[in-house]
């Protein structure tokens, strides 16, 4: 269910790290809680983020939720194609990356959960 190549936060974001950067999205559990996602508000490339800082919002018919960065770093890329088709967050959450962050400190990853730990959390 939860891909093993990602790490997870208690706020239901995932990060998939390749080299010195990681793509960030929200988990299947999060999209189920939100229901139909209709808008994504994402940051500009180049923005500096702290651990746990809000980098945007995801809005469903039911509610607006903040998106929190799992790591500190600089926004390297933004998935504007996803912002055009936000319903993909519901249909394929773990492939729907929102931003890519160049990690300031790879040690941030140590505080995150594995797929197994996250599965236990949302069980």
């Amino acid at each position, binding site marked *: 269910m939860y891909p093993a190549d990602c790490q997870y936060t208690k706020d239901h974001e995932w990060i998939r790290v390749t080299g010195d950067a990681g793509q960030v999205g929200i988990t299947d559990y999060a999209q189920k809680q939100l*229901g*139909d996602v*209709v*808008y994504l508000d994402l940051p500009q490339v180049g923005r500096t983020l702290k651990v746990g800082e809000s980098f945007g*919002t995801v*809005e469903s*018919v*039911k509610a*607006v939720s903040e998106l929190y960065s799992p790591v500190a770093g600089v926004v390297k890329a933004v998935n504007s194609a996803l912002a055009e088709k936000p319903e993909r967050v519901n249909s394929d959450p773990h492939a729907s990356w929102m931003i890519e962050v160049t990690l300031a400190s790879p040690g941030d990853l140590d505080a995150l959960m594995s797929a197994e730990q996250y599965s236990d959390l949302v069980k």
Partner: protein
Amino acid sequence: MVPFAGWDMPVEYSGLSQEHLAVRTRAGLFDVTHMGQVELAGKDAVAAVQWISSNDAARLKIGQAHYSGLTTPAGTFVDDMLVYRFGEDHFLLVINASNVEKDVAWIAEQTRRFDVAAVDTSARYALIALQGPLARQVMQRLSNVDLATIKYYWFAHGEIAGVRGTLSRTGYTGEDGYEVFVPPQQAVRVWDAILDAGRDEDVIPAGLGARDTLRLEAAMRLYGNDIDDTTTVLDADLEWIIGWNKGEFLGRQALADQKARGVARRIVGFEMKDRAIARHGYPVIIDGAEAGRVTSGTQTPFLKKAIGMAYVPAARAVPGMEFDVEIRGRLARATIVPLPFYKRPRG
């Protein structure tokens, strides 16, 4: 489940959007037992209802219902309600769950000088609503009442799934459908029987979330969001529930004065031009200043647009005019459109 006026209510069963679409295209089943009921009966029942309610109850035939305001002397809302005429001198009011205590006290106070009994009968009724274009064919399988004979906003007493109750052709979704009043002890049986009878039509249960998006598409006002004791019946663009010709009632003078003066603000419907949802409480910005508030807003699953209602200055309450909504520190553009957003096709 969420707490709502002392009840635990499901926001959704299988998913808000699919529940919404089920009601627009087939039928959905709502448990709205939380709604309150007050009954007025006695020699002066007509006069008492005429005094507390803005609409003209004398025009109701036995077996007929209408929408109305429970108004303050200022012409604002203590609550909004459906008024059912059960008998010549017997009325049933259906009121909002969150207002039951307040309304019962208000009605008791305001009807003191009449020869009438006003009783909170909320605990005597479970209320189950089947809403959607296929509601009639499903419900007819369970009832000895010929549903074709019940016109819109009329009701009849009879059997539903072997349970004695009242079938009312009313609802809060903008769709055709029925609300059935049954004894609470029999509610589960009626609920299960309706779902069972609607299996071929894929009738599904629908929660509070879909109820809100459906009523908003139909531009039905929600107490606490769109109307309250600070908004007048005219502000809310509901002049059709004012019985101007019926004589005195609570709020009549204030409303007549306001009508003569002209309203300063009015509720409007809007569609978002920018990609954003304007929700309850967000400021309306015109010419750089706050000019009103959004009262309700959502992304509708059926029309697939971000829509809402807001109070704006009367001079700007014109379809086609635009305004901004401040959404989390940013401005998003909205266009005023005529209400309702959705009107069911007449069959």
